[in-house]
């Protein structure tokens, strides 16, 4: 006896359902395979990206190192002409960066700040030996030429792109807080902060370094003299930060320069 019409319809329906399930399953597998393919593709991008970052970081480290080496070479060349100052620029840079770290961390983190500190006297390459090393007083003409070294120095570094911001320090490192300095006679906050910091670090090193005609002063004594110049030669805010750095710390910084 054959199937009833009812049974046959049931069977057809079951087959159709099974086909639909198979199609859905196959669609699902295709979608899963596509999703896996996309995932693998994204992983490939991620791995290339991290490789690119690593390479980029290596390159920028190398570039940074070559900038620093260039600036050190220039600094040494400038200092080679002046037997008395020795490692003056390196010490000023170390003191100045410590002051900057406490006063304006972003400024201290900027490589150009250190470059400017190190190269502040680069304009002295244009000053003849006879004037630079003269034992007695300078004539007014010689004095005028000597006072041009910040402008000459700024002109020199202005042609070097990676020293563009250092130019401000080079140009203004002889300005006074009261406006009595040179070359532009800027006063107070008209003087770039890095140059105001430099003035204090420079004085600190000048006072505490041995000279042929006198021994270097102790840090405590230099502090008193610099404090007396606050508001005149020096920015009082920078002087206040100087007081927060101990003699031991300055000794350590001096030691790192050698």
């Amino acid at each position, binding site marked *: 006896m054959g199937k009833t019409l009812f049974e046959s319809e049931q069977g057809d329906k079951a087959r159709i359902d099974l086909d639909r399930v198979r199609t859905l399953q196959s669609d699902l597998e295709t979608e899963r395979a*596509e999703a896996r*393919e*996309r995932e*693998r*593709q994204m*992983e*490939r*991008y991620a791995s*290339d*990206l991290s*490789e*690119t970052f690593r390479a980029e970081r290596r390159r920028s480290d190398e570039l940074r190192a070559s900038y620093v080496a260039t600036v050190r070479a220039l600094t040494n060349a400038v200092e080679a002409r002046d037997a008395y100052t020795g490692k003056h620029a390196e010490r000023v840079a170390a003191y100045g960066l410590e002051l900057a770290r406490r006063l304006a961390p972003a400024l201290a983190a900027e490589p150009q700040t250190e470059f400017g500190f190190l190269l502040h006297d680069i304009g002295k390459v244009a000053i003849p030996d006879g004037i630079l090393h003269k034992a007695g007083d300078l004539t007014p003409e010689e004095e005028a030429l000597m006072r041009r070294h910040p402008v000459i120095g700024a002109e020199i570094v202005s042609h070097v792109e990676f020293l563009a911001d250092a130019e401000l320090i080079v140009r203004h490192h002889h300005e006074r807080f009261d406006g009595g300095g040179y070359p532009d006679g800027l006063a107070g906050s008209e003087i770039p902060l890095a140059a105001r910091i430099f003035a204090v670090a420079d004085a600190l090193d000048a006072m505490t370094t041995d000279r042929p005609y006198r021994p270097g002063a102790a840090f405590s004594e230099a502090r008193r003299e610099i404090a007396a110049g606050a508001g005149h030669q020096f920015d009082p805010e920078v002087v206040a930060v100087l007081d927060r750095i101990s003699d031991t710390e300055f000794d350590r910084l001096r030691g790192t320069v050698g």
Partner: protein
Amino acid sequence: MAAVLVVDDDPFIRQLIVSTLEDTARDRPAEAGDGIEALEAVEREQPQIVFMDLNMPRMGGLEATRRMREAPKPQPTIVMLTAFAGDENARAAEEAGADLFLTKPFSPLELLNLVDDLNPK
């Protein structure tokens, strides 16, 4: 940079290739979702480089490549996107007239280098 056509049925992969090449390209690469669209796009855009997926609905990459090679005009460089270089798909792609292969998943750096190499200097 050379005009580029990207042929893949997966819009995600197309977008990825287009975005990767976008910064180096003068014009945004053209896109096609299957072989038939690819043939139309080649007529319209006259690309110098075609990135061609293998398996696509309506018309796959092999057939589209064969038909492009039948045309007499200046031929684009056809780069076939395959799962493995050297497998039988790759051999079939070479027979169809593909010039180069890029294995999936492709490296974006390889993709950029490949386009750089194909660019007239």
